[in-house]
């Protein structure tokens, strides 16, 4: 559903809920609950802390890569068999080479300095971090600039090499491929030594 030209901010926010309710990707309540659980996992593991993400950029904290690789390793194996069973499907993002390399570089630089990413930032905002609120305003302006100059940005996003996954590439050996992929990631996650950069004022660190 697309809104009319003269709708105000309130209408557009209400339209967000009706769009989700009608889209068939879970009810508003379910998506809201997924958000609560997603945020809680981040918050209870403290991976949204500046010390964890900027700490990883300095290689002084390894909780973020350990948790990421473990989650991906386990989920990749699970997802493959769920797709086989007809319980899920692929939603691959295309290989837009320019966008991935330029965007990934900007994203990595910004993540090291900000100490957040778009999923972890909101948890810090909810905990009262003023620097992250200011950064979020910067992010909103980033979203504005990207939207307004989308046609210009598009020119550096290509070439689009299509959608491809490792399991599609090794056609005929999909289950073996995904098992190796998943197990290697789990092994990497376990092999990375656990080092932590802590914030003494954070109650989460006081056992």
């Amino acid at each position, binding site marked *: 559903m697309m809104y009319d*030209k003269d709708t105000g*901010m309130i209408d557009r926010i209400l339209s*967000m809920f009706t769009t989700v309710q009608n*889209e*068939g990707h*879970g009810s508003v309540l379910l*998506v*809201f609950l*997924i958000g609560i*659980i*997603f*945020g809680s996992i*981040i*918050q209870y593991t403290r991976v949204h802390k*500046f010390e964890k993400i*900027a700490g*990883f*950029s*300095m290689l002084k904290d390894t*909780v973020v890569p350990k*948790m990421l690789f*473990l*989650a991906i*390793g386990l*989920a*990749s194996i*699970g997802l493959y068999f769920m797709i086989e069973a007809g*319980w*899920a499907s692929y939603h691959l*993002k295309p290989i837009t080479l320019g*966008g991935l*390399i330029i*965007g990934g*570089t*900007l*994203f*990595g630089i*910004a993540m090291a*300095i900000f100490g957040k*990413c*778009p999923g972890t930032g909101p948890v810090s905002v*909810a905990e*009262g971090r003023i*620097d992250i609120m*200011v*950064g*979020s305003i*910067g992010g*909103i302006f980033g*979203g504005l600039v*990207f*939207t*307004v100059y989308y046609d210009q940005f598009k020119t550096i*996003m290509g070439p689009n090499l299509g*959608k491809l996954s*490792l399991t599609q590439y090794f056609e005929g050996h999909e289950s073996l491929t995904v098992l190796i992929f998943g197990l290697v990631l789990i092994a990497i996650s376990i092999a990375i030594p*656990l080092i932590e950069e802590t*914030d*003494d004022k954070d109650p*989460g660190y006081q056992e």
Partner: protein
Amino acid sequence: MIKRIPWWLGGILMALLLLFTFSVFGANRPIGASTYVPYFAGIIFDLDPQKYTYLKEIHNPGSWEGVLLLGVLVGAFLNAIFVTKTFGWTIVPAAWKKYKNDSAVSRLVWSFVAGFLLIIGARLAGGCTSGHFLSGMTQTAFSSMIFGAVVMGALIVTGKLFYKERK
């Protein structure tokens, strides 16, 4: 009450949440967490979705992620107040003081600039830590592996150049 869980438990729970969200019993789609930013920018700056192609393209995923974000904010706020007791108005993180400087102005200016670049980068790449790293690599997508490798490289080079231990 539990205030913290170890990384391995977080990894297992995150995998389960991803699988549930992917499944037809859940949302039948991946988790993403950066499309909501231009979506909200469109609402805040009252941009006409008929005029801006990008807003048209992200209307559905932006709405979905907008509701997800509300869940994250409300859940994290309630946790911070009642469970983890981590709520507090602060500006300069502990490690910023240890590896950069004590200046609130410096931290705020860098946060604004980094927040801006973070979203430009995520939208150029078509995803972030959630959409590419978690959801994309779970599908063994090449696009997400390229993104993951570039991000990790840029992150670690920046960490090396931008911070140093203060005496």
